């Protein structure tokens, strides 16, 4: 699970061009879409959907579903684990 989270952070930084952020800067429970947290926006959310398909083979057909899953790195990792089973 921890490797999954680390990998996820790496992919997010790379896919979303977060060049000023390091893996260590993203806490597992930091709110990804809050300016208090990582500060992602609506286009980033769509890019996360692409990322899930590309690296984890998970298809999200309804962006609303993504909203809850993309809250934090923890929720994203849970979502991936669940979908992969």
């Amino acid at each position, binding site marked *: 699970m921890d490797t999954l989270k680390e990998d996820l952070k790496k992919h997010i930084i790379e896919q979303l061009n977060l060049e000023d952020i390091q893996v260590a800067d993203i806490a597992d429970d930091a709110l990804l879409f809050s300016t208090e947290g990582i500060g992602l926006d*609506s*286009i980033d959310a*769509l890019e996360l959907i692409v990322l899930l398909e590309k690296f984890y083979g998970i298809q999200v057909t309804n962006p609303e579903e993504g909203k809850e899953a993309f809250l934090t790195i923890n929720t994203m990792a849970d979502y991936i684990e669940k979908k992969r089973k």
Partner: protein
Amino acid sequence: MTYIGAEEIVSPLGQSIRENFQSVCENRSGISLVPHAGFNQEAIHLSKITDLSSSNKFETLLIDTLSKVAKRIDPARITSKKTLVIVSSTKGGLDRNIKDPFAPSLTSLVKHFGLANEPLVVSNACISGVLAINAANNFIKAGLYDHVIVLGCDVISDFVLFGFQSLFAVSATPCTPFDLNRSGISLGEGCAAVVVSNTPEIFKNKPLGLYSGTSANDANHISGPSRTGEGLYRSVKRTLELNKMSFGEIDFISAHGTATVFNDEMEAIAFDRLNMADIPINSLKGYFGHTLGAAGVIETAISMQMMRHNMLIKSLGYSETGTSKSLNITTGNKSSELNTILKTASGFGGCNASLVFRKL
């Protein structure tokens, strides 16, 4: 004020302005289900010109439409040194040459008609058409040209369709602007023209009066509409102020109405802030789909026909209020004296534009 007329449209709804207006009057849509069009080979609702087999649709449509315009004005004016052609388009002939989407087609256009001046391309997302008509008016008022022909054209490509699919912005049904159940756009293609001039004499049919229009940026987000409708609010307010018109003088609003959840909500908020929520309003996207850079010209051309026929056209696809501020959406065709019409557009990059025209 300048003169505007000689409106023409080539779209899935017809080969001329007469055919297009006839289709719209019959509340027919150009949108149909096209098999295997989507990124995953799924069927998609598109307003596609099916009998256009050319590998170079953009250029073919430009030439075809300008030929039609030439029959509606003094044809000698097409090649005059005092005439400028403005093309409004987002992606031009991207399928032909992704690195140079406009120049090859424009070179052909210049050669075909013997145009005296290099055409100007306005590429400002979905406000391109309205912005190009405003630019035409500005060029003439500044005395730089006597006549400006505005050609708005965009064609459907995998590029644009897959892009909107990646944004989850494509509706699974024909688009339903301003409706409660709207869920995105239906892409369309087509070409439309209007001629703007400093004299009414070049037009075979009586022109209308075009007034100064403006644009304004939301300064908020590059792809998300403003939650307060700030740019649209500012553009309409400034257009009316510039022409010393009051809100009450507007008989009808031809809105942008793309049928995405956030765009239509943004427009409703802006018109409510402007105290214009009671003015009859429609979106023509239910008929033509979203034709991007052509949309502003197509919708202005249809609105000009509405004015000439004193007829409000039903906003196709709308049945139930779906915005937090309710608007006076036209739910059926209706005779109505239309003397002053406001046309608006909003697009990616946070841009918004508006224009006003009037019966002479």
